[in-house]
Each structure stands twice: as structure tokens, then as C-alpha cells.
């Protein structure tokens, strides 16, 4: 029962508590409105920011869990599609539940050892779990079966990048780019790696290639992010130049 003399702050907290316990969307929506109103009034209240963050966190996790159910159903309905498996691994990782996909894909690999996609799924599950040694073993085993599999090579590049072996990672990306210039994945990943290495001009060149490809393929709507990335890199170049001149 609600207290008629309840303040907005008390109401927000009560709704947060209710949402945490019962997960009702109506409580979430009402709590969100209450916290937004309170934050507009008290923007420097750390407690409010904490509670509003918790509300968003709980709601976001529930949304990701709902996405997991969708991917699992998509896999049931259309077992030949790879995309829901990749999404499932991604979402499970966001929920810190990589053990579940690792277990799932180990079973699937045992049941279909000649299917290269099963090595890809398991390698990715280990990679997202941060289990680099295991991911490396799965990639190596898969490549015994299909030495040139582009997805396993791509995962190997991810693995090398995660291990700090960036030049080797870039070399694999270069091979993949030459093999399939229409697959932008390697350009995106190279851009991240080059930026992390401080090779800003080269990273910018990768983003420019992505933009030109997207524009040439009537996908200009997706050029916004690459443009933001270039702006971010240019800001780093300016900062680095300013540092060089001591200004």
C-alpha cells in the first residue's frame, strides 16, 4: 500500500524496489519518470544517479535475457543460420553467462565434429569468456579441418589482438581483406587495432574506406559512426601534436 504523504524521492525508491522484486514494466516506467524528474531537480545528487543507474541496469539485463530467448527460438526454427548463434554468444557474455554457451557448443561439436561452424561457435564462446588458451585450441583444431576458413582466421586475429600481438592480428586482417574486399569486418577491426597502436593516420584510412564502401552501396545511414570515429581520432592527433610542441 502506498503512503499518501510519500515524497517523490520515496516513491522513486519504492518503485525501484518493486521493480527489482517483481520486474513489472509498469513499475519500471513509473520509476524511470520519477528518477528523471528528480534528477532534473537535483542533478548533483549521487544517490539519485546510483539508484537510476541500478534501475537501468536491471531493466537492461532483463532486455538482454529476452533477446537470449529470441535467439534460442530462432535457432530452433532455423538451425542453418549462423547469426543467432553469434548473437546468443554475445548476449550470454553480456550477462556473464558464457559458461552456458561453452557447454552448449561443446555438446554440439561432439555431435557434429565435421561441421566447421561448430568450431567457430565454440571458439567464439571461449573468446568471449576471456578463455584465450581454450579459444586458441579450438581455432587450431578447426583449422586442421579447414585451414583457410575465414571465420576461424578472423577469430584468430581477434585472439592475437586480445593477446597484444597486434602486428600478427593486422597481418591476418590484411589477408582477409584481400580475399573478400566486400566483407567490411576486417576493416572495422583493423581500424580499432591501428587506433589502439597510435597509428592514427592508418586507422583513419580504414574508416574512410568503410565510409566510401557504405556510400557506394546505398548504406549512407551507417556512415555516422565511422565519421564519429574519425572525429575522435582527429582529436587525438591534435592532442598528440599539441603535446609534441609543448603547448
Amino acid at each position: 500500500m502506498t503512503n499518501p504523504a510519500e515524497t517523490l524521492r520515496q516513491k522513486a525508491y519504492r518503485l525501484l524496489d518493486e521493480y527489482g522484486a517483481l520486474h513489472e514494466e509498469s513499475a519500471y516506467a513509473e520509476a524511470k519518470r520519477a528518477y528523471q524528474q528528480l534528477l532534473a531537480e537535483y542533478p548533483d545528487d549521487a544517490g539519485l544517479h546510483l539508484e537510476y543507474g541500478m534501475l537501468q541496469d536491471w531493466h537492461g539485463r532483463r532486455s538482454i535475457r529476452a533477446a537470449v530467448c529470441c535467439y534460442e527460438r530462432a535457432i530452433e526454427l532455423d538451425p542453418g543460420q549462423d547469426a543467432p548463434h553469434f548473437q546468443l554468444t554475445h548476449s550470454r557474455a553480456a550477462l556473464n553467462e558464457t559458461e552456458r554457451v561453452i557447454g552448449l557448443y561443446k555438446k554440439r561439436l561432439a555431435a557434429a565434429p565435421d561441421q566447421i561452424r561448430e568450431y567457430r561457435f565454440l571458439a567464439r564462446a571461449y573468446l568471449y569468456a576471456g578463455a584465450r588458451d581454450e579459444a586458441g585450441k579450438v581455432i587450431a583444431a578447426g583449422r586442421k579441418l579447414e585451414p583457410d576458413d575465414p571465420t576461424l582466421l578472423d577469430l584468430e586475429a581477434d585472439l592475437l589482438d586480445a593477446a597484444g600481438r597486434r602486428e600478427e592480428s593486422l597481418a591476418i586482417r590484411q589477408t582477409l581483406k584481400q580475399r573478400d574486399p566486400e566483407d567490411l569486418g576486417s576493416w572495422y577491426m583493423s581500424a580499432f587495432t591501428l587506433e589502439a597502436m597510435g597509428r592514427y593516420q592508418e586507422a583513419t584510412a580504414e574508416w574512410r574506406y568503410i565510409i566510401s564502401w557504405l556510400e557506394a552501396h546505398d548504406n549512407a545511414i551507417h556512415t555516422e559512426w565511422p565519421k564519429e570515429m574519425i572525429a575522435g581520432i582527429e582529436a587525438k592527433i591534435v592532442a598528440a601534436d599539441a603535446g609534441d610542441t609543448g603547448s
Partner: protein
Amino acid sequence: MNGEDVASRMRLELSALAPDRWPAIRRAVAARIAAGLLAELDGLPRPASRLDLERQRRARQLAHREVA
């Protein structure tokens, strides 16, 4: 020529010389590769199980949050 090159060449030659038998050979090879891999993975400690961490995280938040 290293071991990988030899295996790759043998694979190409086998698939060309015995195309009717290649699928069965490939299945047998794959079964051995996967069995070895899975045995190796099962022999390693599991990556830190995070299933319980999710519940712990929630319990901790509920236990420690301050009343507004």
C-alpha cells in the same frame, strides 16, 4: 615444407584422387580432431564460472544499497 603444408597438400590430393571416399575420410578425421580437442578442454579448469556471480551481484546490491 612443414607439417601443416604436408597435411594441406595431402588433403587436396586425397580429395582429388578419391572424391567418393573423401567425405568419409573427412568425417573420420574430424571425429578424431574433435575427440582430442574436447578431451583436452575437459582436462582444463573451466573458465571462471560466472553463473553464480550474477546471483551474487544481485544479492550484494540488495544487501548493501542504502535506503533513500
